[in-house]
């Protein structure tokens, strides 16, 4: 099979790789780029462990063929912390005890990030809906929702402080 020349932006960096066109975006991230923060839980779009942000939208990277990402911008969990500084969501997940086994955590944080990027002031129902495609078997979700609330209020406070 002829290789596919994939060019995309991953966590702000331009990436150009020649790949088997049958690969999933998940495989390219994990096996070619060694970004193993993105997890495979089911391989069929049920669990959300492989969630990444593709051009601003949350996708299951196991359901995206790698060539579909051509020319697009991908954000993985490795790209969420900026310059060694944790994102408010990452801080809040630690603080609120929203991390247990941690396997769903990268996808969960990315799902929450997409929510807050579009809606800085979500209510509990909107948070629950935003993470409804991401399964967690440890926490029972309540601490995850709490973490997103904490992060939202902090981001708002920071934005308020910046505009003063």
């Amino acid at each position: 099979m002829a290789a596919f020349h994939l060019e995309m932006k991953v966590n702000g960096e331009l990436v150009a790789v020649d790949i088997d066109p049958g690969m999933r975006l998940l495989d390219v991230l994990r096996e070619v780029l060694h970004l193993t923060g993105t997890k495979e839980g089911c391989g069929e779009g049920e669990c959300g462990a492989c969630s990444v942000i593709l051009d601003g939208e949350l996708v299951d990277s196991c359901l995206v063929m790698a060539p579909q990402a051509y020319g697009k911008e991908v954000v993985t969990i490795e790209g969420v912390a900026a310059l060694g500084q944790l994102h408010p969501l990452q801080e809040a997940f630690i603080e609120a005890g929203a991390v247990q086994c941690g396997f769903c955590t990268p996808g969960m944080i990315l799902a929450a990030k997409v929510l807050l990027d579009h809606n800085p002031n979500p209510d509990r129902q909107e948070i629950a809906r935003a993470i409804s495609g991401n399964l967690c078997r440890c926490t029972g979700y309540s601490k995850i929702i709490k973490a997103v609330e904490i992060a939202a209020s902090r981001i708002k406070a920071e934005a308020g402080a910046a505009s003063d």
Partner: protein
Amino acid sequence: MIEKNIVGQSVPKVDAFGKVTGQTRYAADLDIAGALHLKVLRSKVAHGLVKKIDTSRALKIPGVTAVFTHADIPGSNSYGIIVKDQPVLTNKVRFKGDAIALVAAEEESIAVKALDAIAVEIEELPPLFDIQAAMAAGAPAIHDNGNVLTVTKIKRGNVEAALDQAAAVVSRRYTTQRVEHGYIETEAGIAYMENDMLIIKAGTQNPHYDRRDAARVLGLPINKVRVIQTATGGGFGGKLDISVQCFLGLAALKLGRPVKIVYDRQESFVATAKRHPFIVDYTSVAAADGRLLAVKARIFGDTGAYASYGPATLTRAAVHATGPYEVPNVDLEAFCVYTNNSFSGAMRGFGTPQIAFVFESQMDLLARELKMSPLEIRRRNVLRPGSITATGQELTSSVGIAKTLEAAWARALEVMPGLGGDCR
């Protein structure tokens, strides 16, 4: 300096930073140069004798390094947490999904291809999919010693005599279903030789037991095997059993090359333990004032093809069969039964959730029978300091159920005003 007073304080989870940044390496994230990929050929039938395994076609596929079968196990081909009844690679199939052959190949896709090229001849035996069929006289034996693995009996007082004084007797049959743990991380691991030392790194809840069983099946002294637990993405009891550990050890030891295996979700569902499905025949006997006089129960747990934690699960179910209630006369028997279903093992509570569903349902039915509130009948029966349990233990302190019951009721009234009405 180490903070001395940790109890009562909220402290950040020690490994949370790596987990929120994606840096934590789980088993499937481990890369090892030159690793061969392993895949397991699993049975498509539930019960049968393996007559012949022809690996010659698979071995001719370029990139296939080796195919192992039961004949290649260097030590005792049996492991298990309580009973050593599960083979690494089997010559007798006991459930749909039993492991028959292990392929090692340069690429995962080649290993998958090789699975289809292995020819297995199986002489099918009648499969036993339910407990009654497995316990029936003349049922084919799934293991050499028959299909009833363990019987736990707890007897106290005289149940028959209590029946004579009964104001209410409730007898019901309950059934509960099989449950998959559904941890988000599927089973995975790597293994390699470090001089003459076998190193196995895997997601597990039980590295010490894994080590013991891996050494046993590989015929190695235990000090030549190291099992290192990687960050584990959920277990809930389902990662207490051997899954990938012996496959990894076998291939690394035989081939002298690093190896890697990752179960996909389907294999994780098919090949690993479930919560035991129960059938419970339960009789509760009470006096007119609601006090329990006796409980008689026959508990049957479907442990499937292999024991795993079955004996412990059924013992727990028997020990907890009277719940948090004082019962002077008990006649309890719990049977751990082999069937040709996927094997059952540990899952949060070890048989207690199943039996809790039963004894609490019974309390509600008894209350209805005696025209008493479900709360009141529990108040009159809960264990207190001085109570003697079904197993004869006198409780002297720290018996919180009565207080918990009242607190739960107070809270229920707070969030659902008007609940229960006069019936309290």
